[in-house]
Protein backbone atom coordinates (compact mmCIF):
# COMPACT_ATOMS: atom_id res chain seq x y z
CA UNK A 1 0.00 0.00 0.00
CA UNK A 2 2.70 2.50 0.93
CA UNK A 3 4.04 3.83 -2.31
CA UNK A 4 6.09 6.87 -1.55
CA UNK A 5 8.13 6.23 1.54
CA UNK A 6 11.72 7.31 1.47
CA UNK A 7 13.86 6.29 4.45
CA UNK A 8 14.14 9.88 5.63
CA UNK A 9 10.43 10.37 5.69
CA UNK A 10 9.71 7.27 7.72
CA UNK A 11 10.82 8.89 10.95
CA UNK A 12 8.66 11.94 10.37
CA UNK A 13 5.72 9.76 9.44
CA UNK A 14 6.02 7.92 12.70
CA UNK A 15 5.53 11.21 14.51
CA UNK A 16 2.80 12.74 12.40
CA UNK A 17 1.40 9.40 11.19
CA UNK A 18 -1.48 11.37 9.73
CA UNK A 19 -1.72 10.63 6.02
CA UNK A 20 -2.77 7.02 6.60
CA UNK A 21 -5.51 7.87 9.03
CA UNK A 22 -8.69 9.80 8.92
CA UNK A 23 -12.34 9.10 8.52
CA UNK A 24 -13.39 8.74 4.89
CA UNK A 25 -17.08 8.72 5.81
CA UNK A 26 -17.55 12.45 5.43
CA UNK A 27 -15.85 12.42 2.03
CA UNK A 28 -17.93 9.52 0.79
CA UNK A 29 -21.20 10.87 2.16
CA UNK A 30 -22.38 12.71 -0.98
CA UNK A 31 -21.63 9.68 -3.18
CA UNK A 32 -23.39 7.28 -0.84
CA UNK A 33 -26.37 9.61 -0.55
CA UNK A 34 -26.75 10.04 -4.32
CA UNK A 35 -26.34 6.35 -5.12
CA UNK A 36 -28.57 5.29 -2.25
CA UNK A 37 -31.33 7.69 -3.16
CA UNK A 38 -31.24 7.24 -6.92
CA UNK A 39 -30.05 3.65 -7.32
CA UNK A 40 -30.29 1.43 -4.27
CA UNK A 41 -33.64 2.52 -2.94
CA UNK A 42 -35.31 2.51 -6.38
CA UNK A 43 -33.92 -0.95 -7.14
CA UNK A 44 -35.22 -2.16 -3.80
CA UNK A 45 -38.60 -0.65 -4.66
CA UNK A 46 -38.65 -2.35 -8.07
CA UNK A 47 -38.32 -5.65 -6.21
CA UNK A 48 -41.30 -4.65 -4.10
CA UNK A 49 -43.42 -3.55 -7.09
CA UNK A 50 -42.78 -6.87 -8.80
CA UNK A 51 -44.78 -8.56 -6.07
CA UNK A 52 -47.78 -6.25 -6.28
CA UNK A 53 -50.52 -5.48 -8.78
CA UNK A 54 -49.69 -1.77 -9.03
CA UNK A 55 -50.44 0.33 -12.08
CA UNK A 56 -49.31 3.82 -12.93
CA UNK A 57 -52.92 5.00 -12.86
CA UNK A 58 -54.70 3.63 -9.82
CA UNK A 59 -53.73 2.72 -6.33
CA UNK A 60 -54.08 -1.10 -6.63
CA UNK A 61 -51.56 -2.04 -4.02
CA UNK A 62 -51.98 -5.66 -3.02
CA UNK A 63 -49.07 -7.98 -2.56
CA UNK A 64 -49.32 -10.94 -4.89
CA UNK A 65 -47.15 -13.31 -6.88
CA UNK A 66 -49.62 -13.57 -9.75
CA UNK A 67 -48.02 -10.61 -11.59
CA UNK A 68 -44.69 -12.41 -11.52
CA UNK A 69 -46.20 -15.60 -12.89
CA UNK A 70 -48.44 -13.90 -15.45
CA UNK A 71 -45.65 -11.69 -16.79
CA UNK A 72 -43.11 -14.45 -17.15
CA UNK A 73 -45.61 -16.67 -18.94
CA UNK A 74 -46.84 -14.07 -21.39
CA UNK A 75 -46.99 -15.66 -24.85
CA UNK A 76 -45.01 -12.86 -26.54
CA UNK A 77 -42.17 -12.91 -24.00
CA UNK A 78 -40.35 -15.70 -25.78
CA UNK A 79 -40.39 -13.75 -29.03
CA UNK A 80 -39.13 -10.63 -27.21
CA UNK A 81 -36.27 -12.57 -25.62
CA UNK A 82 -35.33 -14.13 -28.96
CA UNK A 83 -35.27 -10.67 -30.62
CA UNK A 84 -33.16 -9.37 -27.73
CA UNK A 85 -30.81 -12.33 -28.04
CA UNK A 86 -30.30 -11.89 -31.78
CA UNK A 87 -29.89 -8.12 -31.47
CA UNK A 88 -27.43 -8.32 -28.56
CA UNK A 89 -25.51 -11.33 -29.86
CA UNK A 90 -25.04 -9.97 -33.37
CA UNK A 91 -24.21 -6.45 -32.17
CA UNK A 92 -21.69 -7.62 -29.58
CA UNK A 93 -20.02 -10.04 -31.99
CA UNK A 94 -19.87 -7.42 -34.73
CA UNK A 95 -18.53 -4.70 -32.45
CA UNK A 96 -15.90 -6.95 -30.90
CA UNK A 97 -14.61 -8.36 -34.21
CA UNK A 98 -14.73 -5.07 -36.07
CA UNK A 99 -13.30 -3.15 -33.10
CA UNK A 100 -10.36 -5.55 -32.89
CA UNK A 101 -9.82 -5.45 -36.67
CA UNK A 102 -9.82 -1.65 -36.77
CA UNK A 103 -7.52 -1.48 -33.74
CA UNK A 104 -5.08 -3.92 -35.37
CA UNK A 105 -5.03 -1.88 -38.57
CA UNK A 106 -4.60 1.37 -36.64
CA UNK A 107 -1.66 -0.06 -34.68
CA UNK A 108 -0.11 -1.41 -37.88
CA UNK A 109 -0.81 1.88 -39.65
CA UNK A 110 0.98 3.81 -36.93
CA UNK A 111 3.99 1.51 -37.12
CA UNK A 112 4.20 1.63 -40.93
CA UNK A 113 3.27 5.33 -41.02
CA UNK A 114 0.31 4.72 -43.31
CA UNK A 115 -1.67 7.79 -44.35
CA UNK A 116 -5.15 8.20 -42.88
CA UNK A 117 -4.74 6.08 -39.75
CA UNK A 118 -5.66 8.93 -37.44
CA UNK A 119 -8.54 9.93 -39.69
CA UNK A 120 -10.06 6.44 -39.51
CA UNK A 121 -9.77 6.37 -35.73
CA UNK A 122 -11.33 9.80 -35.35
CA UNK A 123 -14.18 9.03 -37.77
CA UNK A 124 -15.11 5.89 -35.83
CA UNK A 125 -15.05 7.88 -32.60
CA UNK A 126 -17.25 10.61 -34.05
CA UNK A 127 -19.88 7.97 -34.86
CA UNK A 128 -19.65 6.84 -31.25
CA UNK A 129 -20.23 10.32 -29.81
CA UNK A 130 -23.41 10.81 -31.85
CA UNK A 131 -26.34 10.65 -29.37
CA UNK A 132 -28.42 7.48 -29.70
CA UNK A 133 -31.60 9.20 -30.81
CA UNK A 134 -29.81 11.22 -33.48
CA UNK A 135 -28.02 8.07 -34.63
CA UNK A 136 -31.37 6.35 -35.03
CA UNK A 137 -32.74 9.24 -37.06
CA UNK A 138 -29.64 9.34 -39.28
CA UNK A 139 -29.89 5.62 -40.05
CA UNK A 140 -33.60 5.96 -40.66
CA UNK A 141 -32.71 8.40 -43.43
CA UNK A 142 -30.16 5.98 -44.86
CA UNK A 143 -32.59 3.07 -44.69
CA UNK A 144 -35.39 5.11 -46.26
CA UNK A 145 -37.33 2.61 -48.37
CA UNK A 146 -38.01 5.09 -51.16
CA UNK A 147 -35.83 4.90 -54.29
CA UNK A 148 -34.05 8.11 -53.19
CA UNK A 149 -33.01 6.70 -49.79
CA UNK A 150 -29.35 6.81 -48.76
CA UNK A 151 -28.75 3.14 -49.50
CA UNK A 152 -31.47 2.47 -52.05
CA UNK A 153 -30.21 5.17 -54.40
CA UNK A 154 -26.81 3.46 -54.36
CA UNK A 155 -28.48 0.14 -55.17
CA UNK A 156 -30.29 1.83 -58.02
CA UNK A 157 -27.03 3.25 -59.30
CA UNK A 158 -25.70 -0.32 -59.34
CA UNK A 159 -28.82 -1.46 -61.16
CA UNK A 160 -30.32 -3.37 -58.23
CA UNK A 161 -33.84 -3.31 -56.86
CA UNK A 162 -34.49 -1.14 -53.81
CA UNK A 163 -34.72 -2.92 -50.44
CA UNK A 164 -37.31 -2.41 -47.73
CA UNK A 165 -34.68 -2.07 -45.01
CA UNK A 166 -37.02 -1.18 -42.17
CA UNK A 167 -40.44 -2.46 -43.23
CA UNK A 168 -39.50 -6.01 -44.23
CA UNK A 169 -39.69 -8.08 -41.00
CA UNK A 170 -36.95 -10.41 -42.23
CA UNK A 171 -34.49 -7.63 -42.98
CA UNK A 172 -35.19 -5.10 -40.26
CA UNK A 173 -33.23 -6.83 -37.50
CA UNK A 174 -30.04 -6.77 -39.58
CA UNK A 175 -30.58 -3.10 -40.39
CA UNK A 176 -30.86 -2.31 -36.68
CA UNK A 177 -27.79 -4.41 -35.89
CA UNK A 178 -25.73 -2.61 -38.56
CA UNK A 179 -26.79 0.76 -37.18
CA UNK A 180 -25.85 -0.36 -33.68
CA UNK A 181 -22.48 -1.71 -34.79
CA UNK A 182 -21.81 1.61 -36.52
CA UNK A 183 -22.32 3.50 -33.29
CA UNK A 184 -20.74 1.05 -30.85
CA UNK A 185 -17.61 -0.20 -32.60
CA UNK A 186 -15.41 2.73 -31.58
CA UNK A 187 -15.67 1.77 -27.91
CA UNK A 188 -14.33 -1.73 -28.57
CA UNK A 189 -11.69 -0.25 -30.86
CA UNK A 190 -10.42 2.03 -28.10
CA UNK A 191 -10.26 -0.79 -25.55
CA UNK A 192 -8.56 -3.16 -28.01
CA UNK A 193 -6.13 -0.46 -29.12
CA UNK A 194 -5.03 0.22 -25.55
CA UNK A 195 -4.66 -3.50 -24.89
CA UNK A 196 -2.62 -4.04 -28.08
CA UNK A 197 -0.30 -1.22 -27.10
CA UNK A 198 0.26 -2.87 -23.73
CA UNK A 199 1.59 -6.14 -25.21
CA UNK A 200 5.32 -6.51 -24.57
CA UNK A 201 7.14 -6.21 -27.96
CA UNK A 202 9.66 -8.79 -26.74
CA UNK A 203 7.00 -11.46 -27.22
CA UNK A 204 6.76 -10.63 -30.92
CA UNK A 205 10.55 -10.61 -31.31
CA UNK A 206 10.74 -14.02 -29.68
CA UNK A 207 7.99 -15.33 -31.95
CA UNK A 208 9.80 -13.99 -35.03
CA UNK A 209 13.06 -15.60 -33.95
CA UNK A 210 11.17 -18.86 -33.67
CA UNK A 211 9.99 -18.35 -37.24
CA UNK A 212 6.32 -17.63 -36.59
CA UNK A 213 4.42 -16.15 -39.54
CA UNK A 214 2.04 -13.19 -39.04
CA UNK A 215 -0.97 -15.45 -38.69
CA UNK A 216 0.75 -17.55 -36.05
CA UNK A 217 1.87 -14.41 -34.23
CA UNK A 218 -1.75 -13.26 -34.14
CA UNK A 219 -3.14 -16.55 -32.83
CA UNK A 220 -0.33 -17.51 -30.46
CA UNK A 221 0.79 -14.10 -29.15
CA UNK A 222 -1.80 -11.38 -29.76
CA UNK A 223 -5.04 -13.19 -28.97
CA UNK A 224 -3.88 -14.86 -25.72
CA UNK A 225 -2.44 -11.54 -24.55
CA UNK A 226 -5.73 -9.80 -25.29
CA UNK A 227 -7.86 -12.33 -23.44
CA UNK A 228 -8.51 -10.25 -20.32
CA UNK A 229 -9.22 -7.09 -22.31
CA UNK A 230 -11.61 -8.94 -24.62
CA UNK A 231 -13.53 -10.40 -21.69
CA UNK A 232 -13.85 -7.03 -19.95
CA UNK A 233 -14.89 -5.43 -23.23
CA UNK A 234 -17.49 -8.14 -23.84
CA UNK A 235 -19.00 -7.54 -20.40
CA UNK A 236 -19.22 -3.81 -21.00
CA UNK A 237 -20.64 -3.90 -24.52
CA UNK A 238 -23.09 -6.70 -23.76
CA UNK A 239 -24.60 -4.67 -20.93
CA UNK A 240 -24.61 -1.52 -23.04
CA UNK A 241 -26.38 -3.36 -25.87
CA UNK A 242 -28.93 -5.02 -23.59
CA UNK A 243 -29.82 -1.61 -22.22
CA UNK A 244 -29.97 0.04 -25.65
CA UNK A 245 -33.25 1.82 -25.91
CA UNK A 246 -32.96 5.25 -27.52
CA UNK A 247 -31.33 4.05 -30.75
CA UNK A 248 -34.01 1.40 -31.34
CA UNK A 249 -37.02 3.53 -30.45
CA UNK A 250 -35.93 6.28 -32.85
CA UNK A 251 -35.00 3.89 -35.68
CA UNK A 252 -37.90 1.42 -35.74
CA UNK A 253 -39.94 1.97 -32.58
CA UNK A 254 -39.76 -1.82 -32.19
CA UNK A 255 -41.57 -2.60 -35.41
CA UNK A 256 -42.71 -3.71 -37.85
CA UNK A 257 -44.94 -5.73 -35.55
CA UNK A 258 -42.62 -6.91 -32.80
CA UNK A 259 -39.69 -7.64 -35.13
CA UNK A 260 -37.25 -5.34 -33.29
CA UNK A 261 -38.93 -4.96 -29.92
CA UNK A 262 -36.01 -5.67 -27.58
CA UNK A 263 -36.52 -6.35 -23.88
CA UNK A 264 -35.74 -2.78 -22.79
CA UNK A 265 -38.30 -1.38 -25.23
CA UNK A 266 -40.87 -4.00 -24.19
CA UNK A 267 -40.32 -3.08 -20.54
CA UNK A 268 -40.69 0.60 -21.35
CA UNK A 269 -43.93 -0.01 -23.24
CA UNK A 270 -45.27 -2.16 -20.43
CA UNK A 271 -44.81 0.60 -17.86
CA UNK A 272 -45.33 3.80 -19.77
CA UNK A 273 -47.75 2.75 -22.50
CA UNK A 274 -49.76 0.03 -20.75
CA UNK A 275 -49.27 1.68 -17.34
CA UNK A 276 -48.64 -1.77 -15.87
CA UNK A 277 -46.13 -0.87 -13.21
CA UNK A 278 -45.95 -4.29 -11.59
CA UNK A 279 -45.41 -6.24 -14.82
CA UNK A 280 -42.83 -3.68 -15.96
CA UNK A 281 -40.99 -4.15 -12.68
CA UNK A 282 -40.88 -7.89 -13.21
CA UNK A 283 -39.45 -7.32 -16.68
CA UNK A 284 -36.85 -4.87 -15.44
CA UNK A 285 -35.75 -7.40 -12.83
CA UNK A 286 -35.42 -9.89 -15.67
CA UNK A 287 -33.16 -7.40 -17.48
CA UNK A 288 -31.08 -7.00 -14.35
CA UNK A 289 -30.82 -10.76 -13.86
CA UNK A 290 -29.70 -11.29 -17.46
CA UNK A 291 -27.02 -8.57 -17.19
CA UNK A 292 -25.65 -9.99 -13.96
CA UNK A 293 -25.77 -13.57 -15.18
CA UNK A 294 -23.85 -12.74 -18.34
CA UNK A 295 -21.30 -10.64 -16.43
CA UNK A 296 -20.65 -13.58 -14.11
CA UNK A 297 -20.31 -16.01 -17.00
CA UNK A 298 -17.81 -13.77 -18.81
CA UNK A 299 -15.92 -13.16 -15.58
CA UNK A 300 -15.28 -16.89 -15.24
CA UNK A 301 -13.28 -16.72 -18.44
CA UNK A 302 -10.99 -14.00 -17.12
CA UNK A 303 -7.41 -15.15 -16.69
CA UNK A 304 -6.63 -15.89 -13.05
CA UNK A 305 -4.24 -13.02 -12.32
CA UNK A 306 -6.66 -10.27 -13.32
CA UNK A 307 -9.47 -11.75 -11.24
CA UNK A 308 -9.57 -10.32 -7.76
Amino acid at each position, binding site marked *: *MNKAITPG*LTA*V*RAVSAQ*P*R*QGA*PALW*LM*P*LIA*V*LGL*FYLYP*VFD*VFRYAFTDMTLLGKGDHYTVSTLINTLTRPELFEILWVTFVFTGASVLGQQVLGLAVALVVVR*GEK*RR*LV*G*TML*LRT*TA*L*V*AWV*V*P*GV*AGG*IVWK*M*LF*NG*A*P*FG*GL*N*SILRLLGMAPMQWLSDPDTVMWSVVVANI*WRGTAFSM*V*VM*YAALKAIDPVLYEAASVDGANPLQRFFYVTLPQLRA*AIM*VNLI*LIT*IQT*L*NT*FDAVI*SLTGGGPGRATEVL*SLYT*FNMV*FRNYDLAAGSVL*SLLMLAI*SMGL*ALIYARFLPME*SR*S
Partner: protein
Amino acid sequence: MKSENQARIGDVFSYLFMALMMLFFAWPLIWLLSLALRGRKEIYLGVARLIPHEPTLDNFTAILSSSQFAAYLVNALKLSTLSALGCLAVALPAAYAFSRFPLKGKGAWMMGLLSFQMISPLVIMIPLYRYMASIHMTESHFGVTMVYIALAVPTATWILKGFIDGIPESLDEAAMIDGCNRFSVFWRIILPLSTPGIASAFIITVIAGWSQFLVPFLLITKDNLMPIGVGIFQYAGTQNDSSLQVLAAACIVSVVPAIVAFLSLQRLILGAMTAGAVKG
Protein backbone atom coordinates in the same frame (compact mmCIF):
# COMPACT_ATOMS: atom_id res chain seq x y z
CA MET B 1 13.83 -8.40 -49.33
CA LYS B 2 11.14 -11.01 -48.94
CA SER B 3 9.84 -9.57 -45.69
CA GLU B 4 9.81 -6.06 -47.18
CA ASN B 5 7.61 -7.35 -50.02
CA GLN B 6 5.37 -9.04 -47.53
CA ALA B 7 5.02 -5.78 -45.62
CA ARG B 8 4.10 -3.96 -48.84
CA ILE B 9 1.35 -6.45 -49.56
CA GLY B 10 0.21 -6.04 -45.98
CA ASP B 11 0.08 -2.27 -46.51
CA VAL B 12 -2.14 -2.69 -49.55
CA PHE B 13 -4.58 -4.83 -47.59
CA SER B 14 -4.45 -2.40 -44.68
CA TYR B 15 -5.34 0.48 -46.99
CA LEU B 16 -8.20 -1.49 -48.54
CA PHE B 17 -9.62 -2.32 -45.14
CA MET B 18 -9.14 1.25 -43.92
CA ALA B 19 -10.96 2.62 -46.97
CA LEU B 20 -13.85 0.23 -46.44
CA MET B 21 -14.12 1.15 -42.76
CA MET B 22 -13.85 4.86 -43.52
CA LEU B 23 -16.78 4.50 -45.88
CA PHE B 24 -18.82 2.60 -43.28
CA PHE B 25 -18.21 5.09 -40.48
CA ALA B 26 -18.34 8.26 -42.53
CA TRP B 27 -21.14 7.48 -44.98
CA PRO B 28 -24.10 8.13 -42.63
CA LEU B 29 -22.66 11.50 -41.66
CA ILE B 30 -21.77 12.43 -45.24
CA TRP B 31 -25.31 11.53 -46.26
CA LEU B 32 -26.73 13.60 -43.42
CA LEU B 33 -24.69 16.62 -44.46
CA SER B 34 -25.62 16.14 -48.11
CA LEU B 35 -29.35 16.07 -47.27
CA ALA B 36 -29.07 19.09 -45.00
CA LEU B 37 -27.55 21.19 -47.77
CA ARG B 38 -30.19 20.37 -50.38
CA GLY B 39 -33.31 22.21 -51.38
CA ARG B 40 -36.66 20.45 -51.43
CA LYS B 41 -36.42 19.30 -55.05
CA GLU B 42 -32.98 17.73 -54.82
CA ILE B 43 -34.05 15.47 -51.96
CA TYR B 44 -35.74 13.17 -54.45
CA LEU B 45 -32.59 12.73 -56.54
CA GLY B 46 -30.83 10.47 -54.06
CA VAL B 47 -27.14 9.79 -54.29
CA ALA B 48 -26.92 11.37 -57.75
CA ARG B 49 -26.89 14.74 -55.96
CA LEU B 50 -24.49 13.77 -53.18
CA ILE B 51 -22.99 17.17 -53.85
CA PRO B 52 -26.09 19.32 -54.37
CA HIS B 53 -26.16 21.43 -57.53
CA GLU B 54 -27.88 24.20 -55.64
CA PRO B 55 -26.54 23.94 -52.10
CA THR B 56 -28.39 26.03 -49.56
CA LEU B 57 -28.09 26.91 -45.91
CA ASP B 58 -31.82 27.62 -45.65
CA ASN B 59 -32.46 24.46 -43.63
CA PHE B 60 -29.95 25.50 -40.99
CA THR B 61 -31.37 29.01 -40.90
CA ALA B 62 -34.84 27.57 -40.43
CA ILE B 63 -33.73 25.38 -37.53
CA LEU B 64 -31.49 27.89 -35.78
CA SER B 65 -33.99 30.74 -36.03
CA SER B 66 -36.87 28.72 -34.59
CA SER B 67 -37.33 29.64 -30.95
CA GLN B 68 -38.35 26.05 -30.27
CA PHE B 69 -34.97 24.64 -31.30
CA ALA B 70 -33.10 27.43 -29.58
CA ALA B 71 -34.88 26.43 -26.38
CA TYR B 72 -34.03 22.73 -26.91
CA LEU B 73 -30.35 23.60 -27.30
CA VAL B 74 -30.25 25.92 -24.29
CA ASN B 75 -32.05 23.34 -22.14
CA ALA B 76 -29.65 20.59 -23.18
CA LEU B 77 -26.64 22.80 -22.50
CA LYS B 78 -28.02 23.81 -19.12
CA LEU B 79 -28.87 20.27 -18.04
CA SER B 80 -25.61 18.73 -19.20
CA THR B 81 -23.27 21.38 -17.74
CA LEU B 82 -25.11 21.73 -14.44
CA SER B 83 -25.21 17.97 -13.99
CA ALA B 84 -21.52 17.68 -14.88
CA LEU B 85 -20.67 20.27 -12.22
CA GLY B 86 -22.87 18.53 -9.68
CA CYS B 87 -21.32 15.22 -10.60
CA LEU B 88 -17.80 16.58 -9.96
CA ALA B 89 -18.90 17.94 -6.59
CA VAL B 90 -20.03 14.46 -5.57
CA ALA B 91 -17.32 12.42 -7.29
CA LEU B 92 -14.21 14.44 -6.40
CA PRO B 93 -14.29 14.03 -2.60
CA ALA B 94 -15.21 10.37 -3.01
CA ALA B 95 -12.39 9.79 -5.49
CA TYR B 96 -9.95 11.47 -3.09
CA ALA B 97 -11.15 9.30 -0.23
CA PHE B 98 -10.88 6.10 -2.31
CA SER B 99 -7.38 7.08 -3.36
CA ARG B 100 -5.93 8.21 -0.04
CA PHE B 101 -7.80 6.91 2.98
CA PRO B 102 -7.18 3.47 4.43
CA LEU B 103 -10.37 1.64 3.60
CA LYS B 104 -11.17 -2.01 4.15
CA GLY B 105 -12.00 -3.86 0.96
CA LYS B 106 -11.23 -0.93 -1.29
CA GLY B 107 -11.16 -3.16 -4.38
CA ALA B 108 -14.62 -4.47 -3.62
CA TRP B 109 -15.90 -0.92 -3.18
CA MET B 110 -14.51 0.10 -6.55
CA MET B 111 -15.93 -2.98 -8.28
CA GLY B 112 -19.25 -2.35 -6.58
CA LEU B 113 -19.21 1.17 -7.93
CA LEU B 114 -18.56 -0.18 -11.41
CA SER B 115 -21.42 -2.64 -11.14
CA PHE B 116 -23.89 0.25 -10.96
CA GLN B 117 -23.32 0.39 -14.71
CA MET B 118 -25.15 -2.91 -14.97
CA ILE B 119 -28.36 -1.33 -13.79
CA SER B 120 -30.20 0.06 -16.77
CA PRO B 121 -31.49 3.61 -16.30
CA LEU B 122 -34.86 2.17 -17.25
CA VAL B 123 -34.92 0.03 -14.09
CA ILE B 124 -34.43 2.96 -11.73
CA MET B 125 -36.64 5.29 -13.74
CA ILE B 126 -39.71 3.18 -13.03
CA PRO B 127 -39.80 4.03 -9.30
CA LEU B 128 -38.11 7.40 -9.75
CA TYR B 129 -40.89 8.47 -12.07
CA ARG B 130 -43.42 7.68 -9.37
CA TYR B 131 -41.50 9.44 -6.60
CA MET B 132 -40.95 12.51 -8.70
CA ALA B 133 -44.55 12.67 -9.81
CA SER B 134 -45.71 12.44 -6.20
CA ILE B 135 -43.48 15.33 -5.05
CA HIS B 136 -44.17 17.37 -8.21
CA MET B 137 -40.61 17.20 -9.49
CA THR B 138 -41.57 16.24 -13.02
CA GLU B 139 -41.42 19.13 -15.49
CA SER B 140 -38.44 20.42 -13.52
CA HIS B 141 -34.84 20.80 -14.60
CA PHE B 142 -33.73 20.30 -11.02
CA GLY B 143 -35.18 16.79 -10.87
CA VAL B 144 -33.68 15.82 -14.23
CA THR B 145 -30.27 17.20 -13.23
CA MET B 146 -30.25 15.13 -10.05
CA VAL B 147 -30.92 11.92 -12.00
CA TYR B 148 -28.21 12.79 -14.54
CA ILE B 149 -25.76 13.26 -11.66
CA ALA B 150 -26.63 9.85 -10.22
CA LEU B 151 -26.23 8.16 -13.61
CA ALA B 152 -22.83 9.73 -14.27
CA VAL B 153 -21.27 9.61 -10.83
CA PRO B 154 -19.91 6.02 -10.79
CA THR B 155 -17.89 6.49 -13.97
CA ALA B 156 -16.70 9.95 -12.95
CA THR B 157 -15.51 8.64 -9.57
CA TRP B 158 -13.54 5.87 -11.30
CA ILE B 159 -11.85 8.25 -13.69
CA LEU B 160 -10.97 10.76 -10.97
CA LYS B 161 -9.70 8.10 -8.58
CA GLY B 162 -7.38 6.83 -11.29
CA PHE B 163 -6.07 10.32 -11.79
CA ILE B 164 -5.54 11.10 -8.12
CA ASP B 165 -3.73 7.76 -7.72
CA GLY B 166 -1.15 9.17 -10.12
CA ILE B 167 -0.35 12.13 -7.87
CA PRO B 168 2.52 11.16 -5.52
CA GLU B 169 1.34 10.76 -1.96
CA SER B 170 4.53 12.38 -0.69
CA LEU B 171 3.01 15.70 -1.72
CA ASP B 172 0.10 15.14 0.68
CA GLU B 173 2.48 14.17 3.42
CA ALA B 174 4.75 17.15 2.94
CA ALA B 175 1.76 19.50 3.03
CA MET B 176 0.44 17.89 6.18
CA ILE B 177 3.77 18.27 7.89
CA ASP B 178 3.55 21.93 6.99
CA GLY B 179 0.28 22.05 8.88
CA CYS B 180 -2.34 21.52 6.19
CA ASN B 181 -5.38 19.50 7.17
CA ARG B 182 -7.09 16.98 4.88
CA PHE B 183 -9.37 19.54 3.35
CA SER B 184 -6.67 22.04 2.49
CA VAL B 185 -4.53 19.26 1.00
CA PHE B 186 -7.48 18.33 -1.18
CA TRP B 187 -8.29 21.93 -2.06
CA ARG B 188 -4.79 23.35 -2.55
CA ILE B 189 -2.84 20.38 -3.87
CA ILE B 190 -5.03 17.61 -5.25
CA LEU B 191 -7.54 19.76 -7.11
CA PRO B 192 -5.01 21.93 -8.97
CA LEU B 193 -2.90 18.90 -9.87
CA SER B 194 -5.81 16.87 -11.21
CA THR B 195 -7.06 19.51 -13.66
CA PRO B 196 -6.65 17.19 -16.68
CA GLY B 197 -8.59 14.42 -14.93
CA ILE B 198 -11.28 16.86 -13.88
CA ALA B 199 -11.50 18.21 -17.42
CA SER B 200 -11.95 14.78 -18.97
CA ALA B 201 -14.49 13.67 -16.35
CA PHE B 202 -16.35 16.93 -16.93
CA ILE B 203 -16.45 16.57 -20.71
CA ILE B 204 -17.43 12.88 -20.56
CA THR B 205 -20.29 13.78 -18.23
CA VAL B 206 -21.37 16.70 -20.42
CA ILE B 207 -21.45 14.45 -23.50
CA ALA B 208 -23.39 11.77 -21.62
CA GLY B 209 -25.87 14.41 -20.44
CA TRP B 210 -26.21 15.81 -23.94
CA SER B 211 -27.06 12.32 -25.25
CA GLN B 212 -29.58 11.56 -22.50
CA PHE B 213 -32.95 10.57 -23.81
CA LEU B 214 -34.85 8.30 -21.47
CA VAL B 215 -34.73 10.47 -18.34
CA PRO B 216 -35.97 13.74 -19.86
CA PHE B 217 -38.35 11.82 -22.15
CA LEU B 218 -40.13 10.49 -19.06
CA LEU B 219 -39.82 13.46 -16.73
CA ILE B 220 -40.46 16.35 -19.11
CA THR B 221 -43.43 16.76 -21.39
CA LYS B 222 -43.52 20.55 -21.70
CA ASP B 223 -42.03 21.59 -25.01
CA ASN B 224 -40.20 24.64 -23.65
CA LEU B 225 -38.35 22.56 -21.04
CA MET B 226 -37.18 19.74 -23.32
CA PRO B 227 -33.51 19.17 -24.10
CA ILE B 228 -32.46 18.56 -27.70
CA GLY B 229 -32.38 14.75 -27.43
CA VAL B 230 -36.10 14.59 -26.71
CA GLY B 231 -36.91 17.60 -28.87
CA ILE B 232 -35.43 16.08 -31.99
CA PHE B 233 -37.21 12.77 -31.36
CA GLN B 234 -40.57 14.54 -31.10
CA TYR B 235 -39.72 16.68 -34.12
CA ALA B 236 -38.76 13.63 -36.21
CA GLY B 237 -42.14 12.10 -35.40
CA THR B 238 -43.92 15.02 -37.04
CA GLN B 239 -41.85 15.06 -40.25
CA ASN B 240 -42.26 13.20 -43.53
CA ASP B 241 -40.18 12.61 -46.64
CA SER B 242 -40.87 16.07 -48.03
CA SER B 243 -39.04 17.77 -45.16
CA LEU B 244 -36.11 15.36 -44.79
CA GLN B 245 -33.66 18.17 -45.50
CA VAL B 246 -34.86 20.18 -42.48
CA LEU B 247 -34.75 17.14 -40.22
CA ALA B 248 -31.20 16.44 -41.43
CA ALA B 249 -30.17 19.99 -40.55
CA ALA B 250 -31.80 19.61 -37.13
CA CYS B 251 -29.89 16.38 -36.61
CA ILE B 252 -26.59 18.05 -37.44
CA VAL B 253 -27.35 20.88 -35.03
CA SER B 254 -28.01 18.35 -32.28
CA VAL B 255 -24.94 16.26 -32.99
CA VAL B 256 -22.23 18.83 -33.62
CA PRO B 257 -21.91 20.18 -30.05
CA ALA B 258 -21.21 16.67 -28.73
CA ILE B 259 -18.67 15.99 -31.47
CA VAL B 260 -16.87 19.30 -30.93
CA ALA B 261 -16.74 18.77 -27.16
CA PHE B 262 -15.28 15.32 -27.72
CA LEU B 263 -12.72 16.27 -30.35
CA SER B 264 -11.45 19.17 -28.25
CA LEU B 265 -10.21 16.78 -25.56
CA GLN B 266 -9.99 13.52 -27.51
CA ARG B 267 -6.65 12.30 -26.15
CA LEU B 268 -7.45 13.06 -22.53
CA ILE B 269 -10.87 11.41 -22.71
CA LEU B 270 -9.58 8.24 -24.36
CA GLY B 271 -6.78 7.97 -21.80
CA ALA B 272 -9.21 8.36 -18.92
CA MET B 273 -11.64 5.81 -20.36
CA THR B 274 -9.18 3.08 -21.16
CA ALA B 275 -7.38 3.36 -17.84
CA GLY B 276 -10.40 1.81 -16.15
CA ALA B 277 -11.24 -0.76 -18.80
CA VAL B 278 -7.75 -2.14 -19.29
CA LYS B 279 -6.84 -2.34 -15.64
CA GLY B 280 -10.05 -4.36 -15.43
